[in-house]
């Protein structure tokens, strides 16, 4: 009896937490989509202006995002904040290796970024922004990640 009464609340608590978690993901996602759209980070024109150094707008947005993220990371580490499901928030350090995957993979990403005018988040946001043909770009991007999975053992990392 006493065992049941002690285990029961934690199970309930866990269920409640996962319920909040299930709500938090779409809510944060919707918020992210609104921010991406209203800031025009999803705009092909703004991306072109950035790569042509015609406007400081994108650089200002990225700089402010990095500043807010750095302050958030520092706060999370200091307070020891936990996720909704109660796990500690950790950003696992990337293994540097010889750095080839970051240099080459990053450059390939950059080529695609300028060609589509969108990175992964905006690809999805643009579908909701009334550019349904971006579904094809999303499927193509998935094909790209699939090919990486196939080639992975042969690629330098």
């Amino acid at each position, binding site marked *: 009896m006493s065992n049941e009464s002690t285990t029961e609340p934690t199970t309930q608590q866990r269920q409640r937490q996962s319920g909040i978690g299930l709500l938090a993901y779409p809510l944060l996602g919707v918020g992210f989509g609104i921010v991406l*759209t209203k800031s*025009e980070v*999803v*705009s*092909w*024109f703004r991306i*072109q202006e950035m*790569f*042509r150094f015609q406007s400081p707008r994108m650089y200002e947005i990225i700089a402010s*995002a*990095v500043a807010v*993220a750095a302050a958030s*990371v520092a706060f999370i580490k200091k307070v020891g904040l936990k996720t909704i499901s109660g796990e500690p928030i950790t*950003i696992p*350090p*990337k*293994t*540097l290796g010889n*750095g080839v*995957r*970051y*240099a*080459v*993979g*990053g*450059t*390939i*990403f*950059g*080529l*695609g*970024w*300028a*060609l*589509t*005018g*969108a*990175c*992964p*988040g905006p*690809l999805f946001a*643009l579908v909701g*922004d009334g*550019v*349904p*043909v*971006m579904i*094809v*770009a*999303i499927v*193509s*991007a*998935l*094909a*790209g*990640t699939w*090919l*990486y*999975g196939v080639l992975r053992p042969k*690629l330098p990392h």
Partner: protein
Amino acid sequence: MKLGIHDFSGLVPRELFTWSALPTLKGFVSIIVGGFLVGFGTAYAGGCTSGHAISGLADLQLSSLIAVVGFFAGGLIATHFLLPLFL
């Protein structure tokens, strides 16, 4: 540099990102080739703009800095050398 873009309204050029533009060279490169490179590059580099440029730089990770330099190198090459070839 003048590209063949005439409609500057909205979030994306209508000349590139419509179903009717998809089978054309400029539509194919913008949507399918570009999307493919975004997916492959994100997987290979282990992150995208939010993962490397924002979260990674905020956490002062050297690998993210290398990736971000790569993002801009690729973006500058595509903008100044590839786009003029098909737009």
